[in-house]
């Protein structure tokens, strides 16, 4: 009764106010896009975008973000499965550590990566002896992007694994299916939506990565200067027009993928 009354009262009052507040929020999210669009040097847009510096940055962005996604899929998906299915001491701590990059200032992540994998870093020394030097290379940019992007995949996929119907896996085992067959035919199809959503978020976050990249990989044109770094570079040289155009391109790339994949997935 009480809840019915509350609901009825709500219909009289809240929706208009809610819609108003929602409109403010929507405007807030749209404003930067509109601002960029209004300030963009449209007449010279086509020529500017084809400048080698911008094209190179975009190409690097695509390569680095996809490489980061690949790293996240190869190592992050098993981690998500373990977090969801294996009980061990320290699991909660590990889950917290995995989430950390989502809230950490990316610059701090970059410093952390440098102290761990830098030339004189924790693992960096070992790598140097093996003849591998990671910092200030394209792989370093991918590692930095994976560090901040992978948590989105792991978190989303873990909850996907958690919600898999154990009953179906049991049914498969009574039919004689091996663990691999169960994973392939029952578990993975069931987590496909989570996998897609997590991968999309991970990739989009990697595409926008700036702070960790500039610290750990540097801002080397053609090597580690991805889109966001190039935007920063253009602004520093006083070329606001180039920065705005490049920003718009990055924005549209992310938006297209998020709407196409994430939008469809979450409606399921």
């Amino acid at each position: 009764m009480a809840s019915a009354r509350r609901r009825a009262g709500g219909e009289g009052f809240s929706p208009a106010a809610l819609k108003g507040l929602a409109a403010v929020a929507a405007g807030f999210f749209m404003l930067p896009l509109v601002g960029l669009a209004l300030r963009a040097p449209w007449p010279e847009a086509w020529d500017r975008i084809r400048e080698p510096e911008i094209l190179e940055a975009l190409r690097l962005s695509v390569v680095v973000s996809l490489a980061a996604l690949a790293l996240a899929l190869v190592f992050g998906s098993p981690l998500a499965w373990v977090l969801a299915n294996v009980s061990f001491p320290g699991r909660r701590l590990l889950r917290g550590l995995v989430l950390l990059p989502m809230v950490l200032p990316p610059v701090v992540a970059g410093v952390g990566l440098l102290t761990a994998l830098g030339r004189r870093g924790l693992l960096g020394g070992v790598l140097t002896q093996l003849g591998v030097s990671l910092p200030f290379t394209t792989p370093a940019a991918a590692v930095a992007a994976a560090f901040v992007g992978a948590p989105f995949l792991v978190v989303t996929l873990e909850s996907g694994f958690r919600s898999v119907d154990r009953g179906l896996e049991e049914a498969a085992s009574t039919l004689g299916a091996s663990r691999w067959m169960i994973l392939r035919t029952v578990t993975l199809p069931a987590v496909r939506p989570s996998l897609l959503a997590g991968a999309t978020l991970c990739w989009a976050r990697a595409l926008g990565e700036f702070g960790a990249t500039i610290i750990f990989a540097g801002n080397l044109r053609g090597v580690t200067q991805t889109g966001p770094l190039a935007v920063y570079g253009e602004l520093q040289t006083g070329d606001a027009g180039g920065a705005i155009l490049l920003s718009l391109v990055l924005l549209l790339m992310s938006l297209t993928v998020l709407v196409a994949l994430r939008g469809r997935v979450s409606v399921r």
Partner: protein
Amino acid sequence: MTELAARVELRRGDFSLEVAFDLEAGETVALLGPNGAGKSTLVQALAGLVPIDAGEVRAAGVVWEQPGAGIRLSPQQRSVGVMFQGLRLFPALSALDNVAYGLRAQGIARDAARSTALELLRHFDVGELASRMPPTLSGGQAQRIALARALAVEPDVMLLDEPMSALDVANRAEARRILRSALDDFAGVKLVVTHEPLEAMALAGRLIIIEDGRIVQTGTPAEIRSRPRSQYTASLVGLNLINGIIASRDGHTVIDTGDGKLAIAGHGLDPGTAVRATIHPRAITLAIQKERPSSSARNVIDAEVANIELIGDRVRVLLDARPPLTAEVTLEALDELELQRKQRVWAIVKATQVDVYPA
């Protein structure tokens, strides 16, 4: 020949399951019990989905599990087909691939597995559903797919956990007929788990009744119907069950239940013998007059109406009496007597209507 020998002991928190039974190939046995009796746990234990703490499970000469000897086959290693409660069809696979799944798991090539699966679907008159996805199937269709899936691997043991639960009442008769004929065709061990006595008696030639993780009675449907050994079983078959000891009162033989006495027809039973007795609810007559009615029946019991239940066109009157009884009257009688709760009545039972058997 015994094909499935099970002695299962397992404990889960406060609940303990301790049952032992042998099943023969070809016979259909129903495991009947109320919710929470441990039926589904037993199915999971037999299928290898939960470990047993002690005992042994042996099927077709193979030891499936024996904790004492450290033996425990995985579900994959047991020749078992399970039709789960809720069916558990794979939602991302077509009906055909659901049925072909077990064959694929055995390493049979896709085309061969599919053609065998299609034959099986046709056998169950659902060949046209081959390409359908499980979420689009009706309860009855899904039931047949699940049945075909479990049978496809030709297991030694078939376990069916509440096989009719996915169906609405209208489709039950048809589904029961299909299930019955599928079970008749299957030569292995068949265990049907259910909480519905009608279903158990329609499908099985032998019943095992469990309550609180223990077997309380086994027997044919006819034996269970005429000789229930627990209140649960008696209520399943709609009888009053009386437990007591033979005694003598005024030269008549009675059963002393500890909560009232019931006169029975002379049985030549020695006083002190523990017995059970059943009374059919229709054998109990109700009278509402103030004074004790003079009746030739030897049992005239002072009672209070505790509850009145309508079951179809019959009326069950639960009586607070010594001993407690349930009577069955017609709707006309209900109107005529103007029965209501809390009303005082006389319950009249002829001694010859009390069916006595050894406890």
